């Protein structure tokens, strides 16, 4: 979609490096005195007037690299030159010439927007006379002009990010260093943030060095560096990566909408398949080698296979060694239960659900049902009320009005009984970090009243299902990220709940863990577990049977992914993605006609 801009940018390539990293090594000494090699022999160049992206799985060394460039860390060996200045010996000079936005943006929550800007202007020594002009431009770019008196703490997530960016840009830096600037930000805000970055690159001709875990963002960079375990795996223009993948990416259409997920699970279990995702109602498959014949053989002719244009994401998934294997093996031997077709008994029902905090209505008049074996998605921008709704469903927050029934129990009357039937996985890792894997599982099993033999049986199941056996005596806090998530899920499933509540299970998780996770959820749903999940990754909505999009506490749209996507259909965009649909809905350009019984008013603005 940004391809036009991208070409224009890459045509005016200038050979003026703003950042040169040569033979960079970085070691940390871990607590057990082991030396951890965070970065090894890294050589990277970032040019003026270009956006250089840094991608890689969690722990690949992205943040370390950006921090070294900002002079916050000293390299163990190797040289880092920023705008011709050495980052170790001329740190202060470097720091007065770079704009840096850390992962936790450095805003003072108690200070207002303009006070934050004043602070950074003072620190960067921006002459008083230049300030009004500079502020005007930054405020106009970030559309924060109306909020200059508001405290930073009271801004929405997206606005905070933009203010963070404005502060980093206060003294027209020669290079902008951004560390995962869009984590936890909804698609609309993400799009706006990138617009600002590209505008700067074009008008001010600065260099941008950005790390990201969103692969669609990486695809828009002029130059991408792929880090893997502290080493540069590959680098080049995203286009180059994508062309190499030609002939290895296919779209497989399922017979019916209901069988998409089953097809997805089957394809994931095939050998020679590197990556499987659901995109726009079809299963997207990336194969190990070009034109893998297996596909034709495995998929019955009824299902149409069509080669498609590779995306950067496909390339990335194929690039990282061994990424596709681990989960396939675990799922391999298991027999997937048949989809309980047509079984439409409601497991979760809400009627006119409402939540008021003080004078602020967080959730207005929400009604929906979730059926057995369904994956139901709760989507919306930051602050839309989806967490509030979610917490009410789990019985963590009392509703101010309306009715909720979970697994047939009225939440108002029999909370404890309803709770025994549900499993809950919180947004952040929330098991006992100091307890071992086994102790955590034992505790949660007993908390749900499992007797000894059943508990042992279920723990063995969890070890097999999630590959946790080798970690059983390790402290939960010391597990690698992906295994923490597995453990959390195992704990939530130990008592074989009817309903699984998952709050943002994939935020802050790298693309590999995300894929593994959805594959698993898919499997449980097929066994008849009902899943209610919140997410802000729009493409993940594709894995849901049905979903509810919320904005400002109201229902914006509800229905199957296909139905939601259709809403954004237009002559310009015949095959809209979920992101497009969401942005169109959020902007009020389209709305839901019927189906939900609740219409979102177009004049409602996003927060």
């Amino acid at each position, binding site marked *: 979609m940004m391809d036009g801009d991208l070409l224009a940018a890459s045509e005016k390539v200038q050979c003026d490096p703003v950042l040169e990293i040569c033979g960079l090594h970085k070691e940390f000494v871990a607590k057990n005195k082991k030396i951890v090699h965070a970065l090894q022999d890294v050589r990277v160049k970032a040019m003026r007037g270009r956006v250089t992206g840094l991608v890689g799985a969690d722990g690949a060394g992205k943040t370390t690299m950006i921090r070294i460039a900002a002079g916050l860390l000293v390299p163990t060996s190797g040289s880092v030159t920023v705008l011709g200045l050495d980052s170790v010996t001329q740190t202060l000079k470097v720091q007065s010439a770079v704009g840096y936005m850390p992962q936790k943006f450095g805003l003072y929550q108690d200070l207002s927007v303009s006070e934050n800007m004043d602070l950074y202007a003072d620190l960067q020594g921006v002459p008083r006379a230049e300030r009004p002009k500079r502020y005007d431009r930054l405020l106009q770019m970030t559309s924060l002009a109306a909020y200059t008196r508001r405290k930073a703490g009271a801004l929405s997530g997206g606005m905070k990010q933009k203010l963070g960016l404005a502060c980093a840009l206060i003294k027209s830096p020669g290079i902008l260093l951004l560390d995962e600037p869009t984590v936890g930000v909804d698609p609309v805000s993400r799009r706006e943030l990138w617009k600002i970055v590209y505008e700067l690159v074009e008008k001010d001709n600065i260099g941008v060095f950005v790390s990201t875990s969103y692969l669609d963002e990486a695809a828009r960079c002029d130059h991408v560096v792929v880090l893997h375990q502290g080493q540069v795996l590959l680098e080049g223009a995203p286009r180059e990566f994508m062309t190499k993948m030609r002939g290895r990416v296919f779209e497989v259409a399922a017979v019916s909408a209901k069988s998409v997920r089953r097809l997805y699970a089957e394809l994931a279990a095939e050998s020679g398949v590197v990556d499987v995702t659901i995109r726009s109602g079809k299963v997207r498959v990336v194969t190990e080698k070009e034109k893998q014949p297996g596909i034709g053989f495995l998929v019955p002719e009824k299902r149409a296979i069509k080669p498609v244009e590779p995306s950067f994401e496909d390339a990335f998934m194929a690039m990282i060694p061994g990424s596709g294997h681990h989960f396939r093996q675990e799922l391999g031997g298991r027999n997937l239960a048949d989809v309980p077709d047509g079984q439409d008994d409601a497991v979760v029902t809400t009627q006119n659900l409402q939540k008021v905090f003080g004078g602020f209505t967080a959730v207005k008049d929400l009604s929906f049902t979730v059926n057995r074996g369904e994956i139901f998605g709760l989507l919306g921008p930051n602050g839309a009320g989806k967490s509030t709704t979610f917490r009410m469903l789990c*019985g963590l927050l009392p509703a101010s009005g309306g009715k909720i029934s979970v697994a047939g129990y009225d939440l108002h009357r029999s909370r*404890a009984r309803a709770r*025994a039937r549900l499993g809950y996985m*919180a947004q952040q890792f929330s098991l*006992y970090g100091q307890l071992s894997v086994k102790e955590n599982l034992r505790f949660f099993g007993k908390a749900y009243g499992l007797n000894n033999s059943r508990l042992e049986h279920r723990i063995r199941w969890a070890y097999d299902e999630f590959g946790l056996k080798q970690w059983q005596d390790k402290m939960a806090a010391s597990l690698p990220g992906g295994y923490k998530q597995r453990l959390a899920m195992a704990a939530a499933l130990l008592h074989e709940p009817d309903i699984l509540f998952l709050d943002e299970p994939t935020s802050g998780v790298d693309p590999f863990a995300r894929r593994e996770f959805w594959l698993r959820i898919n499997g449980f749903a097929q066994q008849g577990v009902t899943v209610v999940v919140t997410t802000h990754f729009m493409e993940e909505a594709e894995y849901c049977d049905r979903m509810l999009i919320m904005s400002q506490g109201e229902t914006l749209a509800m229905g199957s992914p296909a139905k939601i996507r259709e809403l954004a259909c237009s002559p310009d965009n015949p095959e809209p993605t979920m992101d497009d649909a969401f942005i169109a809905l959020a902007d009020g350009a389209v709305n839901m006609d019927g189906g939900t019984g609740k219409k979102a008013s177009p004049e409602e603005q996003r927060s």
Partner: protein
Amino acid sequence: MIVLRRILALVVKEFTLIMKDPKSRFVIIGPPLIQFFVFGYAATYDLKNVRYAVLDQSGSALSRQFLAKVEGSGVFRLTGMLHDQQQIAEYIDGEKSRLVIHIDDTFAEKVRRSVPVKIQVIADGRNPNVALIALGYLGTIVHQFNEELVHQGVVQPGSSGLLLEERAWFNGNLRSRWFIVSALGGLISMVVVMILTSLSVAREREFGTFDQLLVAPFTPAEILVGKSLPGIIFGFGDAMIFAAGAVYWFGVPFRGTIAALAVALLCFIVTMVGVGLLVSSLSMTMQQGLLGSFVFIMPAVTLSGLATPVENMPPWLQQADMINPVRYIIIALRSIFLEGADLAAVWPHIWPLMIIASLTLTLAAWMFRARSV
């Protein structure tokens, strides 16, 4: 049955959490022990090394006899022999001495003639506690000196018209270390309990595990019991260890019954667990929890009678102090250790604790429900 299993699971989890983490294990054992010994030695009103100077204008055998008694008391340390009155100001102002004993030149003669005579003592009032206590010591020395004079026949026995026969019960040598140390253990175990419980819920809230507990089929009462037991057991264990330490290390006599001690301490620890859980259920973060227990501990300890008697406070403050649980345990511990109280005798200090405990625990359970449904 299933309820018991669930509670047991919670308790086992709490114990494992505390005992597994070296830091929290240390918090329960290390600092309390150090505090017990440091404060056991530091927190005392028994004076030693009180610096004093002497202006002896009498220079007689009798004045020297008196000064020898002062020196021999083991309380005072001579820092200067003065020659004239101007020096007194120099010594007191510059903190060279805290007391100046001034014996004037008529001293010996007056004593011999059985004329009442006064020894001037100038004390530095910047630390009035030390001044008062030191003057008290001196008073005792003078009292003994007078008896000695009678005994030696320097003064006619009949001329001493008033004889004070002083006796102190329960603590014959008037050692304030007994007084402080007997109660100190209860106080330190209280701090341990407060920190353990006030942080326990807040920590779970911060790490998100509290939601996980609330989503599980626990009732608020079950969570309350599960959270209380570890605090009660560790607090009680600590308190008993300190009681043993007071007797075997500091040599405090133990005159009461062990049953009385155990019951009083248990009631007190349960009360403190109630307060800690209340603080915890009110605070969303560990910092608030820590600050909250600080806000409770400071006034509660200050007004408990540990360091300064409750009876010295203004009446309105004494009335308000009736709700201070620490006050009761301090009285109870002292009467058990030093006065030999049994269960019946400490009962008046136990039932108020029970009332406070039932109030705070109910309130804490209610807060769990209200804050977290």
